[in-house]
C-alpha cells in the first residue's frame, strides 16, 4: 500500500484536533469535535470542509462543447458562461462512471469536478472517448486545493473576506479570479450538504491562509471545521448520491432516481441507447427512502427483505442527526417502492421493520 496523500491543510486538521483517516488514498479528517456538532453547525450556521481530494479536469479546444456533450448525460447546451451543471458520465450500458459538476468557462473551455476515488478511472475514460474530438484534456487535480464553506451563514462569512459582491453569484454559477483574504480563488455557489454555500478553488500555497481567515471570520457565527463524517450525513439527508453507495457502474441514473439529469432528447451521448431502452421498458428497481419502525440503524449493504425474499439492499442509512430518525435509502425491486410499503431490513441477524417514505427527507435550503 502506498502512503495516503496529504492535502495542503493536513497540519491545520491536526491542529484542530481532527481524527485522521485514509479516505480514497487521502489522509483526511473524519471529524473534529464530533459528527453531530459539525452537522448541526452546517445546518444552522456554517461549516468548513477540506475537499482538496476532489479531482478536476480541464477540457478546452475547438470541440470542447461537442466532447463534453457526448461524454455526459445532462444537456450542457443550456449553460451560460460561468454556469455549472450537475450530471453523470455513463458507460454504454447505462451504468455510471461517475457523477460530476461541469463548469462552463466559455464555449471552448470547461472544468469538470469529479470524485477523488475515481480520478484515474475518469481521466482514462475521458481520454479514450476524446479521440474523435479536437480537444485538450488536462488533469489538474494535483494542482488545486478546494474547500467548501456550507451553511446559512456562509455568504455573510465569506463576504467579510472579499470585495466581490457574493450575492451576485447565483446558485450553480461561479466566478473566477476572486480575491479572498488576499488569495486568488475561483468561487462557485455549489455544495454537497443541501445548504447554501460556496466551493472555493485555489492554489496550494494559499490554502492555509484562506482556511484560517474563514475560520476567524466565521467565529462570531459559530463556524466549525467539518470532516468527512458530517459531509456524508449532510449529503445523505439532502438525498445527494455518493458514488459507491447510491450510484456505481451497475446502477443507472434512472434507477437511482436522477432521471432529471439525463436528457434523452439531446444528440448522441454515451449510454443514451441503453438508458432510453431502460426508460421505455420500465425500471426493474429503484432507490426509495425508508424509515425504520423497529429501532436499528440501517447501514450500507444491509439486505432488504419483503414477502420472505431479498428484494434489494441499503445504499446509505443513518440515525439522521437533523431529524433524529433512523432512515435510509435502498435500491429495491420496483414492486416494493410505493410509499407506505412495508419492508424488512436485515440488521445483522435480525429482520427489522421499515416503511417506504419519501426520499425528500428534508427541505433543501438553497439560495436560488
Amino acid at each position, binding site marked *: 500500500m502506498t502512503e495516503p496523500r496529504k492535502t495542503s491543510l493536513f497540519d491545520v486538521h491536526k491542529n484542530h484536533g481532527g481524527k485522521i483517516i485514509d479516505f480514497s488514498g487521502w489522509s483526511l479528517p473524519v*471529524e473534529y469535535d464530533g459528527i453531530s456538532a459539525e452537522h448541526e453547525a452546517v445546518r444552522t450556521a456554517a461549516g468548513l470542509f477540506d475537499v482538496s481530494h476532489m479531482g478536476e479536469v480541464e477540457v478546452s479546444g475547438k470541440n470542447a462543447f461537442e466532447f463534453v456533450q457526448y461524454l455526459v448525460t445532462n444537456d450542457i447546451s443550456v449553460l451560460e458562461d460561468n454556469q455549472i451543471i450537475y450530471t453523470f458520465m455513463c458507460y454504454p450500458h447505462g451504468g455510471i462512471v461517475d457523477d460530476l459538476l461541469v463548469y462552463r468557462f466559455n464555449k471552448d473551455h470547461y472544468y469538470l469536478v469529479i470524485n477523488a476515488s475515481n480520478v484515474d478511472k475518469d481521466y482514462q475514460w475521458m481520454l479514450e472517448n476524446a479521440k474523435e474530438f479536437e480537444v485538450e484534456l488536462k488533469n489538474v487535480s494535483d494542482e488545486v486545493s478546494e474547500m467548501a464553506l456550507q451553511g446559512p451563514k456562509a455568504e455573510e462569512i465569506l463576504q467579510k473576506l472579499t470585495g466581490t459582491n457574493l450575492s451576485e453569484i447565483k446558485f450553480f454559477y461561479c466566478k473566477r479570479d476572486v480575491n479572498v483574504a488576499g488569495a486568488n480563488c475561483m468561487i462557485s455557489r455549489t455544495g454537497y450538504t443541501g445548504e447554501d454555500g460556496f466551493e472555493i478553488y485555489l492554489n496550494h500555497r494559499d490554502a492555509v491562509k484562506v482556511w484560517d481567515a474563514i475560520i476567524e471570520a466565521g467565529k462570531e457565527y459559530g463556524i466549525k471545521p467539518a470532516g468527512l463524517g458530517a459531509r456524508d450525513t449532510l449529503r445523505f439527508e439532502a438525498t445527494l448520491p455518493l458514488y459507491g453507495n447510491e450510484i456505481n457502474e451497475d446502477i443507472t441514473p434512472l434507477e437511482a432516481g436522477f432521471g432529471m439529469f439525463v436528457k434523452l432528447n439531446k444528440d448522441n451521448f454515451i449510454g443514451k441507447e441503453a438508458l432510453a431502452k431502460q426508460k421505455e421498458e420500465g425500471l426493474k428497481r429503484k432507490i426509495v427512502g425508508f424509515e425504520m419502525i423497529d429501532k436499528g440503524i440501517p447501514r450500507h449493504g444491509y439486505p432488504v427483505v419483503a414477502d420472505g425474499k431479498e428484494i434489494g439492499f441499503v445504499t446509505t442509512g443513518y440515525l439522521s442527526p437533523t431529524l433524529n430518525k433512523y432512515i435510509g435509502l435502498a435500491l429495491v425491486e420496483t414492486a416494493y417502492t410505493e410509499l407506505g410499503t412495508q419492508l424488512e431490513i436485515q440488521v*445483522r441477524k435480525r429482520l427489522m421493520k421499515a416503511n417506504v417514505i419519501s426520499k425528500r427527507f428534508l427541505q433543501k435550503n438553497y439560495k436560488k
Partner: protein
Amino acid sequence: MSNLLFSTDHEWVKVEGNVAYIGITDYAQKQLGEIVYVELPEVDDAFEKGDSFGVIESVKAASDAYIPVTGKIVEINEELVDSPQLVNEDAFGNWIVKVEMSDLSELEELMNSQQYEAYCEE
C-alpha cells in the same frame, strides 16, 4: 482503573468472584466517536472468548464488541438502550454486560492498566 483488566480489543474487565463486568475502554469510545446505539445480547446467552457479544454503533459505523472471557450473560446494562452516550461520557463507569465466567484462567491472558496503556501507545 488500576483494578481493571484489559483485552487487546479494548474491552475492560472488572472481576468480582466468578462474575466479570465488561465494558469498552475510554480509548475505544474515543476511537468510535459519538455512540448512538448499543445492541446488547440477551441474558443467558453464552459466548466463547473472542465472540462478538454486542454491537456498538457510532454515527458513522457499527463495530462489534468482543467478549474477553468465556461465559454466560447474567445481566445487561439496559440503561444503554436509551442512553448509549453514557459510554462516551464515562466508559469505565458504564459496564455493558455482566458475565458468569466459566474459565477463570483466561483472566491471566488479559493486560493490567500499565500494560494496556503501553499497548495503546504502540
